[in-house]
């Protein structure tokens, strides 16, 4: 369906534009302004040009070293949690009950961790992991592991990762579940007639249909884990040492802890730029996927996922798109 060109549509978009511009553009200008200056307190500012940016990208300086180290830690963290959460989320989505009251029950429990305030998520795991009063820490120590997330780097990482898996796997699972629900019953019947194996059904029908939601899931999880702050801050405070200091934690330390506005602003801009680039890739891939889908659907309506020629839905059973 073609959209009509109508410049008056801007009036409809104006409220959103104003609200977001107020919250985004003004602060961003402040950040750009600060990033070029140095301050010695008392609201006295000195022009520093691109000095902070040079320092930021040079690992030999204090600022640059801290930034690049936290960036590395953050990337590693994002990769690890993606590698765990995406497959686990798919498995959980495939394990959802088919119908009845258990579906609603599972959905509610799955969504529960998503609605817990982030600092409370931190608190829950802070308590749960403690060797003296927490079940996890107590059991691990009773089993003979010397587990203590306050003093041991590896244990701190383990706790933060398990916490993130606990917190966000549900999001991936719910997204995949929504994707699975949109597969018309006819596809499964066709596969059954063909005697397709369980794995073939997954590879030829379910995975292609989940493509789009999986893309959303991966990118949302990447973004959110890349700017994670509250949960690890509550649990480990960035420690022991600096071992769980991610970029946001480093940034807040510099900005609100040391009130080093210039450095913090420069870091913010570079950080924002990285996110913006990833976001742009995300957006381009998504819109292109949408166009491809449309073209494919128009040229050959019935055979969207083409598992095998024989897997076409039985004509009598019209594919029902969009299950409510």
């Amino acid at each position, binding site marked *: 369906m073609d959209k009509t060109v109508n410049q008056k549509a801007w009036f409809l978009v104006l409220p959103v534009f104003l609200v977001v511009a107020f*919250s985004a553009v003004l602060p961003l200008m402040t950040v750009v302004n600060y990033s070029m200056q140095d301050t010695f307190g008392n609201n006295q500012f000195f022009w520093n040009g691109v000095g902070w940016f040079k320092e930021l990208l040079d690992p030999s300086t204090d600022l640059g070293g801290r930034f690049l180290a936290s960036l590395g830690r953050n990337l590693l963290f994002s990769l690890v949690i993606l590698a765990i959460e995406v497959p686990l989320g798919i498995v*959980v989505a495939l394990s959802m*009950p088919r119908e009845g009251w258990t579906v609603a029950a599972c959905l509610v429990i799955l969504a529960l961790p*998503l609605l*817990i305030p982030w600092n*409370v998520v931190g608190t829950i795991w802070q308590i749960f992991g403690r060797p003296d009063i927490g079940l996890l820490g107590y059991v691990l120590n009773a089993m003979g592991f010397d587990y203590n997330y306050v003093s041991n780097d590896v244990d701190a990482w383990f706790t933060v990762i398990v916490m993130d898996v606990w917190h966000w796997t549900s999001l991936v699972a719910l997204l995949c579940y929504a994707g699975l629900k949109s597969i018309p019953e006819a596809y499964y019947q066709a596969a059954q007639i063909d005697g397709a194996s369980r794995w073939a059904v997954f590879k030829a029908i379910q995975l292609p249909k989940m493509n789009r939601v999986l893309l959303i899931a991966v990118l949302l999880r990447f973004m959110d884990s890349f700017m994670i702050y509250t949960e690890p801050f509550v649990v480990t405070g960035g420690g022991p040492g600096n071992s769980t200091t991610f970029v946001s934690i480093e940034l807040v330390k510099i900005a609100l802890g040391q009130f080093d506005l210039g450095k913090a602003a420069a870091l913010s801009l570079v950080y924002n730029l990285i996110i913006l680039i990833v976001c742009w890739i995300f957006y381009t891939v998504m819109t292109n996927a949408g166009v491809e889908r449309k073209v494919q659907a128009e040229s050959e309506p019935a055979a969207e996922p083409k598992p095998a020629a024989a897997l076409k839905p039985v004509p009598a059973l019209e594919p029902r798109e*969009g299950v409510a």
Partner: protein
Amino acid sequence: MHSIPGRRLIMGLFLIFLLLPIYWLVNMSFKTNSEIVSTMTLWPHNPTLQHYRRIFTDESWYSGYINSLEYVVLNTIISIAVALPAAYAFSRYRFLGDKHLFFWLLSNRMAPAAVYALPFFNLYSAIGLFDTPWAVALAHCIFNVPLAVWILEGFVSGVPREIDETAFLDGYSFPRFFIKILVPLIASGIGVSAFFCFMFSWVELLLARTLTSVHAKPIAAIMTRTVSAAGMDWGLLAAAGVLTIIPGALVIWFVRNYIARGFALGRV
């Protein structure tokens, strides 16, 4: 055919994994502090309501919940109100810079809150909104408005264009068509996006804490007070944590039938 072998076992184990830490929090909230520190008990042996009683009788505690709910509700209303017309525009019309605008909105959803903490502090202090629910509600718009536009656009696109055309032929003015016809048609979409706005505003802490000091302090910030010279008041902390889970749980219960569709952002 839909599911995999051993699905009950997998689902069961995963749900236990999700619920166990929450159970531990609830368990601790009913224990006395001496029981928490001295022994490892799987359920409270001397159940007590003292922590809950303290939260409900001490104004500095329960006002935190009211403050949080205040800005969350404000934010949800603002986000949906401004996002609805924009979602319609993005779904139906092509206009100068529409794609760029949409990307710009989306990029704000992805911007880290830590970047904005300090400038927001300056901005809202300058216009006199610091330490009011409005400051937090407006600040949270930066990630909730783009999300609401995104979800609602999917739902509006699901409404056939013929409905608009018929309504205009019948002599409906644009505002009347919008309120009388379009809004009821995408009611479930509005519910889903309200759910997401509520969720993200409720769980965010960094901005909420930075923009408030005394009067509008959110519950999440008040919880840090349980650290005192005498050590942690674990029971009180756990009870406060349990109470923050309840509003979310209630909201999920009301929208449980739309959750799956909502997570696909109305687009699957």
